[in-house]
Structures are given as structure tokens and as C-alpha cells.
């Protein structure tokens, strides 16, 4: 584009008014593109709306907002992924976040809900190829973040069926779920039909790498040998929040992992019992109940 055409084009846009929803939307979409997908064209397009001065051009002004936005989101993700930041360094992490933002825009006003797919992004992020464990560490940190913020077992829930002026705020009791203490009153013939309920904050993670150990040595209060050998092998973990708001990461053996995975899928006790378990099923169930991982059941 010649300079003359560019100037003429800019002149038209400078006189364009924001006098309709469509023109406001266009301005905001163009601004968004220049922030999250900055290139010559998107910056030129957004610049046409903006008044420049001798000391700060239109592009400079966009950069102020871009830095502020990326800084805010990176700070939010640093809060969720502190171990990943420690493993790769702040500069590397910031660079990764800028790429992540392009592929995974934020869909919620709650910054605490942003970052779910960082582990998936890291898994295909070529510069991090050597850090084979990083994606699974991210998975662990997201699970921790989710558990920390999970609804309480009898949380106040928002009924979104009504979008009218009266928001109906109702307690939704989890009616069919019985507390685990009532298990002794269940007739033995009903046992195969029981579905045990794992606490809603819990997530399972299975990794080829010792991600729990990596996570542990990178905690700020960790004292001791920082080295971790990848030869330590795989980790099967459950990350969850106990009834007294304590955060937990528990290591599971293969049977326990398979058992809880079945529960997560809503399988009945009889279905789970048919899977092959070298270990006694009763023992596994007992450990889960003792830990507080299973607090209720339905028949």
C-alpha cells in the first residue's frame, strides 16, 4: 500500500463515528486483534482509531495496553503455575504465556478460570521439548488450583435457568448421595449397585515422570536435596481438598488408581469389582474411606 492510499484510508477511519453497536464492536475487535495477534496489519487497523502524539505514537499507546494486559494475565498464571515458573524461569514462562494466549483466548471474566489448557500447550510447545515432564507438572498445578477453588460439598449453587431480573439462588442438596456413615445400614444384596462418590475437588494424574517429587522439591518451604532423577519413574496421584480445607496430593498404587478412575466414571461397585485386582477390593475401599476421599454413596 502506498503512503497516499494509507493516509486516505486513515482519514476515512478517523472520521468514522462510534455511533452504533456494530461500530463499537468493530473497534473493540480490532483493538483485541492488535493486542493478542500483533502484526503490521492488526496494529495498523487498531491505530486508525487512536490519536497519536509526538511523544507517543498510536502503536506506542497500544503497546502500553498490551504490556499491561499480558502482565496481568501472566501474573495470574504465575499464581496458578508457580512450579512451572520456577522450572523454566520468569522470562521463558512469559514468552510461553504470550503464545498460549494466541491459541487459547480467555472465555471467562474470572482470571482464576484461565489456564486450563497450559499443559496441552506445553506438550506441543517445541522449545520445551527437552523438558519432557513440564506438561505433567502443569497438569498437577492446574489440578491443585481446581481443588483449592472447588465448590464445598454442599455449596451454594447458582441456578442459571433464570436469566431474568430475579436470580434464583438456591441450595441444591445432593439429595441421592448418602453419607458414608450410612453404609452399614445398606443390605448386602444392594452392594453391587452402590456407586461411591469421590469428593468433587479430586483429580487423578498419571505421569511417566516423578512429577510429585519435582513438585515437592520446588516448594518454597522445601529443605533438602533438590535433585530429582527422571529414572524414579512414573507417578499416579490424586490431588484433592479434604473436608477441613487441607490440600492433599496422595500417591496411589495401580489398583487404587484404577478403582478411583472407575468411580469417577460413575461405575457401580459390581462393575469395578469385575476388573482384575490382585489386591483385595475391600482394602482399597477402606483406604479411600479412611483418607476421606469417599464421603458418600448412592444406590
Amino acid at each position, binding site marked *: 500500500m502506498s503512503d497516499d492510499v494509507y493516509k486516505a484510508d486513515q482519514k476515512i*477511519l478517523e*472520521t*468514522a*463515528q*462510534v*455511533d*452504533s*453497536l*456494530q*461500530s*463499537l*464492536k468493530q*473497534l*473493540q*475487535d480490532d*483493538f*483485541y486483534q492488535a*493486542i*493478542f495477534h500483533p502484526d503490521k496489519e492488526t496494529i495498523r487497523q487498531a491505530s*486508525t*482509531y*487512536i*490519536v497519536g502524539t509526538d*511523544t*507517543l505514537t*498510536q502503536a506506542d*499507546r*497500544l503497546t*502500553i*495496553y498490551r504490556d*499491561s*494486559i499480558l502482565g*496481568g*494475565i501472566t501474573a*495470574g498464571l504465575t499464581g496458578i503455575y508457580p512450579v512451572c515458573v520456577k522450572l523454566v524461569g520468569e522470562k521463558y514462562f512469559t514468552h510461553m504465556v504470550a503464545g498460549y494466549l494466541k491459541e487459547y*483466548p*480467555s*472465555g471467562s*471474566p*474470572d*482470571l*482464576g478460570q*484461565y489456564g486450563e489448557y497450559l499443559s496441552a500447550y506445553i506438550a506441543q510447545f517445541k522449545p520445551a521439548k527437552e523438558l519432557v515432564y513440564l506438561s505433567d507438572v502443569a497438569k498437577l498445578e492446574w489440578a491443585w488450583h481446581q481443588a*483449592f*477453588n*472447588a*465448590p*464445598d460439598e454442599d*455449596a*451454594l*449453587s*447458582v441456578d*442459571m435457568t433464570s*436469566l431474568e*431480573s*430475579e*436470580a434464583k*439462588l438456591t441450595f441444591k442438596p445432593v439429595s441421592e448421595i448418602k453419607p458414608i456413615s450410612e453404609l452399614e445400614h445398606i443390605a448386602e444384596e444392594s452392594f453391587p449397585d452402590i456407586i461411591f462418590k469421590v469428593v468433587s475437588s479430586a483429580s487423578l494424574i498419571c505421569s511417566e515422570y516423578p512429577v510429585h517429587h519435582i513438585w515437592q522439591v520446588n516448594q518454597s518451604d522445601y529443605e533438602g536435596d533438590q535433585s530429582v532423577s527422571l529414572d524414579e519413574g512414573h507417578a499416579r496421584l490424586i490431588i484433592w*481438598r479434604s473436608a477441613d*480445607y487441607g490440600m492433599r496430593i496422595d500417591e496411589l498404587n495401580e489398583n487404587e488408581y484404577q478403582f478411583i478412575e472407575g468411580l469417577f466414571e460413575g461405575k457401580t461397585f459390581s462393575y469395578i469389582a469385575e476388573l482384575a485386582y490382585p489386591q483385595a477390593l475391600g482394602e482399597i475401599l477402606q483406604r479411600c474411606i479412611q483418607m476421606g476421599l469417599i464421603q458418600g454413596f448412592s444406590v
Partner: protein
Amino acid sequence: MNELKFKRQSIAGAGLGLRSSHYQEVFNTKPDVPWFELLSDNYMAEGGLPILRAEKIREDYPVTLHGVGMSLGAADPLNMDYLARLKALVNRLEPVYVSDHLAWVSTSAHYTHDLLPFPYTAFTLKHVSDRINQAQDFLGRELLVENPSSYLDFHATEMSEWEFIQGICKSTDCNLLIDINNIYVSAMNHGFDPYEYLNAIPADRVKEIHLAGYEKMEHYLFDTHGYQVHPPVWALYQAAIKRFGAIPTLIEWDTDIPDFTTLRAEALKAETIMKEVA
């Protein structure tokens, strides 16, 4: 109206923004702070410790809820899920005020998590007024709307920010949260007189004031909330208190958050001005 759970339902004096690094000290020492402002967006999760702590603090202090997610200036429809969550939070914490900004944070359902400016035009005045009315109707209560700090002007702008705020006050019954630091930062960035701005604000609508520290960059001021309040902002605050009266004032400090004593000292400076000037 439902019966209220908490005793303290009004605020006065200089409050502080409650940040997670201060929870323990607030629980342990019950400091002499007249009220706390909580960032609503940090308590949107349905459960867990943050909301439990907020409820605990609410037992001892009046609180206000301040948010950045409403996106009042966006072309996108209002996010009703966000408003429903906010309403649930309001029911739990019974804040004295609920506030958000004259800004947009989302477009085409993509969120930027930052307060972005829009041109002040006849259309956006009507658009934003309608949204304020819609949000207030949904929440069943008044909002305080805050002036943002800005770093750019639009060719399309047809009026000054204070004229826009006057327009909002005519077409809605919302009240105002006036950020003195933001007025100063925008005035320096755009070359207008901050006192002219201040004098144009409808005084009877101002219910809360924010103060914070900016950062001086090479060619502009940036609203970092990471410093003590600067002298010219204190001077403007004096004029504000003289004009509006001893309006409840909050010290905002969000980056490089200092210890509680430093924060409290800033709040006491504001209280001294309130006593001397109002």
C-alpha cells in the same frame, strides 16, 4: 427485603483493600481498620478457603465489593453468568457498595482481564447507561461506577470523560466511585485540568473515593497501584474532600504490596485530611 446477617452495613473513614497476604494478620490482630474492600473477582469460585475467609472477615468489618469483570463499556451482551455469581457473592457478604468501572474487558466473548477505554460518544453514553440499568435491575441494588485511568484518546470521542459521567448520572441512578489517582493520571496523559474534571462531577452521587500510587514512565504516567500516593494526588484529594465531604476513601495497593503498617499509615493520612478539610 430479607433480614441481613451482618451488623455493620455502612462505612466511614479510610478503608483498605484486603489482600491474601494480610489475612493472617487481620484474623490475629483485628486491626483498627474501619472497612475493607474485597476484589469480587477473587471470590467468584463457589467454594474453598477464599470465600470462607471473606465471610469470617465480614463478621468483624463492613466490606465493599469492587470488580473488573462487568465490562460495562463492551459491545458484547452483559455476561449474565458473571452477574449471577456476583449476586450470589453479594448475598453472602452483604457489601455496603458494589462497584465496577467505565471500561470494557471483553469482546466477542474473549476476555482481556484489563480495563480498556472506549470513545465517549452519544451512542456509548446510551449503551453504557442501558447496561448500568440492566446490571442494577438484575442485582437488585445500585452500583458505584468508577472512572478508569487511560493512556489513549480516540478520534471518535465526542465529549470529555466528566461530561460522559454527567450523562451517566442523568440517565441512570447509579452512584460514583471517584478514583482521584485515575483523574490525575489521565489528566497528565491527555493534558486536561484535573480540577476542572473534579468540579464537574455531580457531588451528590459520589459515595466512595479511591487513592493509589502511579508510576512515572518516560512519556506518561501509569496506574500501577504499587506505590504510596503521590503529593499532587493528595492535593487533588484535599480538593475532592472539600467539594464532596468526608467520603469513605480506600487506599489501593496491588503490586509490591507492603506490610500492613505501611498501608495503614497511608489510610491514616487520608483520615487526617478528611478531619481537617471536610
